[in-house]
């Protein structure tokens, strides 16, 4: 059976195609595609879907099921079913990392922590009321620091004395960054301070739902080594980061019907 999972995120749309007939575990994933979402969820989903089918070298009629997840999951009409990203991430990570007990996902708009038991969600927490503790926080503060967001992590690794960022609020943190810069603090130290601040915030959420071991770190931000390290330090354990941490939602959706 061939299934496609589409994760319609606010920044990017991801698609994963799996074939459940392939008997070798971890080889079921046939193709992945990713494209920017822009302003049109449906068009982006369509594009990611076509891309993934093309990469797999098959045709639309060969696809048995399409499952959508992510922010725009309910607007994708050609999907057979919509699944929440929380369930999808749990399923996707479980496939890649069967011992998983917890998931941390820092996305562009929100951050989530999920407690997982045998691939099923047993508890979760989300922060979506404000930008603090999300990718947005990094995006805005990186801008104030005038460094590309992807470089924030490597910059932070070079810090000698991380600055103390006290504002949780993104808007205030942005001005805090500016005032730290005028006081002459090194960019590296400010970057480390920012990353520590987001790590602290996310670590509190993880503790709230009792994540202790076998934790995976997913979402686009997980590619950022500096943040991973800061989180690991804060949580006092090492995190599992999948090769393509931004794809686990789409993967989980694709695997929805496959046990």
């Amino acid at each position, binding site marked *: 059976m061939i299934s496609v999972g589409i994760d319609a995120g606010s920044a990017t749309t991801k698609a994963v195609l799996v074939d459940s007939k392939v008997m070798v575990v971890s080889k079921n994933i046939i193709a992945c595609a990713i494209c920017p979402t822009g302003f049109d969820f449906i068009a982006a989903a369509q594009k990611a879907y076509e891309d993934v089918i093309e990469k797999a070298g098959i045709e639309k009629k060969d696809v048995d099921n399409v499952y959508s997840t992510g922010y725009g999951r309910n607007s994708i009409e050609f999907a057979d079913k919509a699944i*929440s990203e929380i*369930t999808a991430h749990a399923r996707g990570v479980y496939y890649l990392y069967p011992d998983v007990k917890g998931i941390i996902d820092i996305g562009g708009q929100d951050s989530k922590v999920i407690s997982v038991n045998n691939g099923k969600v*047993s508890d*979760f927490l*989300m922060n*979506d009321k404000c930008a603090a503790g999300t990718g947005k926080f990094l995006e805005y503060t990186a801008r104030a620091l005038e460094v590309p967001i992807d470089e924030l992590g490597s910059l932070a690794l070079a810090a000698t004395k991380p600055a103390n960022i006290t504002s949780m609020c993104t808007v205030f943190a942005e001005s805090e960054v500016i005032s730290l810069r005028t006081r002459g603090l090194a960019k590296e130290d400010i970057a480390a301070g920012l990353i520590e601040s987001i790590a602290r915030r996310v670590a509190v959420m993880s503790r709230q739902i009792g994540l202790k071991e076998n934790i995976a770190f997913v979402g686009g931000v997980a590619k950022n080594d500096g943040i991973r390290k800061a989180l690991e330090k804060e949580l006092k354990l090492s995190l599992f980061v999948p090769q393509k941490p931004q794809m686990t939602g789409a993967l989980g959706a694709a695997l929805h019907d496959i046990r």
Partner: protein
Amino acid sequence: MHCFKTIEDIKSSYTRRIRQIADERIAGKKVVGTFCLFVPDEIIFAAGADRVILCGGKNDTIAIAEQYLPRNICPLVKSSFGSIVNDGSSEIRSCSHFSMVDMVVAENTCDSKKKMYELLEEYVPTYVIDLPQRPDSPEALQYFLQELEKFKSAMEKLTGNKVTSERLQQEIRSSNEIRQLFHKLYELRKKDPVPITGLDVLKILQKQYFLSPHAVKEYLNTLITEAEQIIPDGKHKPRIMITGCPMSGGNTKVPDIIESRGGIIVAEESCTGTRSFLDLVEENKDPMLALARRYIRIPCSCMSPNDRRTDIILDLANDFNVDGVVYYTLQFCHGYNIEKNKVQQALKKAGIPMLFIETDYSESDIEQIGLRVDAFMEMLS
């Protein structure tokens, strides 16, 4: 789901009730406005007055309140205050009943309400019942009894009627009848599948504080008859219990989300739920003492300790065969937000999943709440 004629009637009852109140006032009857379950209806009715709830569930009047009140207090307090002080100078309209009361009967519960009442006095005569905060002590009962006696005198003064023991007994019996009817309605919700949605039940839960007791009884009777005849369709849906802050009239946001995303609400432990009817008032006893005893036990988070609430939640979860609990709070309601911790631990121990939703009256977070509810439903099925 079935469309209940009674619910349709309740939805259109507003203007009829407003006309009734207007007529009553012309005829010299006094009408008081209340905000809280700690104020015994029995005393109000025994004094020959009528009452309407003034708790606001609408978002738009909050903007008016924010001219006077800080932004970071609960939306219920802001919405109510805004509806009352609205002088019509803006486009925003308050519901008519907010300007149809002769006196407000307030109570010292949470800080936000307590201090809001102090401001309210400038706009409408406000009587405040003080509440002891540690309800389990014997002194507390005595004190509360005295407060109710004072309140009784205030009602006598307002209406010019004497509140006799007989009248109180009558009203206690009448209110108990309503409570028993609610018990009966809730009994039907123990069935699986359930014959009636949580949204439908919420309508009458909200309106019970607005309509006359006579109307509430009638609606409950016909609703129960209707619901008894229904053979609900077969599909099992996750059975949800809501617990937490009140959902005032106009506010159905979270139940809407839950029931449009595959869940079915089978019980609500809140002031628009079991707290209004779970305990009856003892009949044929000293009526004032019986009232004091019953009302002081209301498991509200303004009281400390309030462990009885956790026990009730566990019992209800069991009785109603609940799959999951949605702990619902209004933003900045510190009492219920803090109490979440204890309830969550107790539910965890009992193996019952819980989803926490803190929100306000705006529509801005509907999608975000929807995502959590979706995930919660997937988790439960």
